[in-house]
């Protein structure tokens, strides 16, 4: 029995490595440190802030004012009040501005924490809202022409090669069962992989001691692609999130995830 395991280890070092990581995840069980961030996010939602002294309770995340359960799973989506397709992060900034009167040049100035920081308000809110969709089917809206255009744009960007290394998203994410160093890479053109990957963000990153959002993950991908800095809430960011969400549609939200 032991010999057989050793052979497996030698034959499939990558699987073995994932096995160790899966074991670690099993050990952690429900003890994802993100639970503290979830609680914090819920507190932010009900906290009166800004010149208007309002909470975010009247924020419409697409399912009606104040409906949080299942809302995350339907982003990105079109909102008539802004005539734009928005991801959950930009929608929250919008609600902070319209409901609380807070200046978006301040609220969106530093959406993501740096290493060593405590998490930001936006990270906490997104983590709580993802938890409000845990177990919910991923079902981004694609009924509006602007939503479909956003998906088409996302697909074009996914394959767009540029920079000194000629990297696109597809360089790492259009093949199945590949890894970079020891890190498994999801094939984001494949429904199964896209559902597993998209549904697990936001996630607690053990190496950073922080919860990271999908928007942050995209910014870090482009850093590694040797591209310039991806702007928070930009069209490229929302288009790629739409591309992933639609490819993942039908999968189940498992976030907040627990990652390396």
């Amino acid at each position, binding site marked *: 029995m032991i010999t057989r395991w050793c052979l497996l280890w030698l034959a499939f070092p990558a699987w073995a490595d994932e096995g160790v990581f899966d074991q670690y995840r099993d050990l952690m069980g429900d003890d994802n440190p993100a639970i503290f961030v979830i609680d914090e996010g819920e507190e932010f939602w009900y906290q009166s802030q800004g010149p208007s002294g309002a909470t975010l309770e009247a924020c419409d995340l697409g399912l009606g004012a104040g409906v949080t359960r299942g809302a995350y799973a339907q982003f990105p989506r079109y909102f008539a009040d802004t005539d734009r397709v928005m991801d959950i992060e930009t929608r929250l900034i919008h609600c902070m501005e319209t409901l609380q009167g807070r200046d978006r040049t301040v609220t969106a100035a530093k959406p993501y924490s740096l290493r060593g920081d405590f998490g930001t308000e936006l990270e906490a809110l997104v983590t709580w809202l993802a938890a409000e969709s845990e177990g919910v089917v991923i079902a981004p809206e694609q009924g509006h022409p602007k939503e479909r255009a956003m998906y088409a*744009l996302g697909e074009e960007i996914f394959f767009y090669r*540029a*920079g000194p*290394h000629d*990297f*696109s998203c597809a360089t790492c994410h259009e093949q199945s069962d590949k890894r970079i160093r020891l890190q498994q*890479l999801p094939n984001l053109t494949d429904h199964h992989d896209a559902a597993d990957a998209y549904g697990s963000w936001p996630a607690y990153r053990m190496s950073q001691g922080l919860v990271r959002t999908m928007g942050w993950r995209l910014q870090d991908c482009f*850093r590694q692609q040797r591209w310039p800095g991806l702007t928070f809430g930009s069209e490229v960011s929302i288009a790629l999130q739409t591309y992933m969400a639609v490819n993942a549609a039908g999968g189940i939200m498992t976030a907040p995830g627990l990652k390396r």
Partner: protein
Amino acid sequence: MKTTLWKMTLLLGIGIAPTAVSEDLAAVIQASFSDRGQATLLRLEQDPLQQHCSQPRDQPVDDEIAMALRQQRLDAVVFPADGDFLGDWQRGATVAASGRGLQFNDDPSIANGGNCYACHQLAPSEVAYGTLGPSLTQYGLRGQSDAMLRYTWTKLWDTHAFNLCSHMPRFGAQKILDEQQLKDVMAFLLDPNSSVNQPTE
């Protein structure tokens, strides 16, 4: 009309990129990024090769353009000035292991790495290797004939000269690595004493 013009430009070998990619897409991309350190917006402008290789895999490719591009890349390969292809394999091992360089958070005054292990298995003693590219363990068994030296150099300099739209970066053509670093990586691959060419147990 635009496509025909594009082809003619390419076939004439003039390196001007016309707008096969929609201008909207380029504008959206430009508007979504900002300069960060050494990574400026100029990096988002595609050269003809990047433009050609940005089609989703199920899109039909134009063979005429592909052949012309591949030949262009082959003709542009610069071989070592002194005719010596092989440097120091141990220095090459360091280049292969380093993943730093050209990211906006990297210090431009420090030498770039080749990050070979991100995608390839090389020395069998290194278990943290990626699988996006083929294993190159025991690569040196192929010998050091002039054909092998020129083939391997060309793959490192500009992979598209042989394999158009390969995922691999153009380490020489894009000046990611300098000539000496490329020679060192060559030795890392081909020197019989290199850790790449040691038995796998």
